[in-house]
């Protein structure tokens, strides 16, 4: 069981690093859904099926959709765009 936990956690942390490191917002939002999915698996392993279900439905599903919709609305819905940095009007 401990190995399963460690592997899931490694996936989760790698995805979390990707959320911070990736320049594309679209990719970062995809990565955050991966974090939520891995977390959901982890909850299931930790004998919290209710929480796992909630994390999968709300965390991975709904939050991802909300984030993606927002990206489209604010014009960051592109594989490469990144408007970090100085964009003073």
């Amino acid at each position: 069981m401990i190995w399963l936990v460690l592997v899931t956690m490694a996936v989760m942390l790698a995805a979390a690093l990707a959320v911070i490191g990736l320049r594309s917002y679209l990719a970062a939002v995809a990565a955050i859904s991966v974090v939520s999915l891995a977390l959901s698996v982890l909850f299931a392993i930790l004998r919290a099926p209710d929480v796992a279900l909630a994390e999968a439905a709300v965390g991975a599903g709904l939050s991802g959709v909300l984030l993606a919709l927002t990206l489209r609305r604010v014009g960051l819905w592109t594989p490469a765009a990144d408007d970090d940095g100085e964009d003073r009007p």
Partner: protein
Amino acid sequence: MKGNARAFASALFLIGLGLMLVTLFEALPFGGAPMQVGQAIAGRALEDTGATNIVSAVLLAYRGLDTLGEVAILFVAATAAGLVLGGAGRAEAQGTPAGFILRAAAALLFPFLLVLGAYIVIHGHLTPGGGFQGGAILAAAFFVPLLAHPASPVNHGVATVVEAFAGAVFVVIGLAGLVGGGAFLVPLLGAGTPGDLFSAGSLPLLYLAIGLKVGSELAGLMARIAAAGDPARQGGKA
């Protein structure tokens, strides 16, 4: 200069918090939680409520007020988002309909998600899942067709009615306890036979109310954010 100071403060803060949490590494009881309250609840939840899903018993009976608060938070967030993004019914037609695959998938998914969500809501006191998880799936069920047919108008009116009554039912069930001279949210209608669909007294009713309320609120939130802004200007790069 100012940026450097900010970065320095942030780094210091991160390191400090990290150290603080690492020092506790040794102090926390791992793998064997103290379970002062949890043990007691696990032992008596079935007799008290009749629910076989003890997490549901905690959510709806022992910590029912938290759950009411949680429903209220979603409601506040939905109301505030409605205030920020403009009034209901401002769902202007946007973009062309999605491709055939998405439209076909949406038509197939809708009934499936609806049934799945409803099942999860009404079995919440027996098996994993409940009002929140089922409500989220119900919300998805109503949102998928919207993705496929972006031009279809969103009917916030029906959602408002469902939302209002579902929320009110939760509070009224709670207040019924007060009328009987007891406390708020006292479990009603007896525990029934554990494992039956119609058991656990008022808990399934509460879950039904939560499921409907959460579902309509989440669907409303998604529809609002999807419809917000002016797509011609904002979605130029899409």
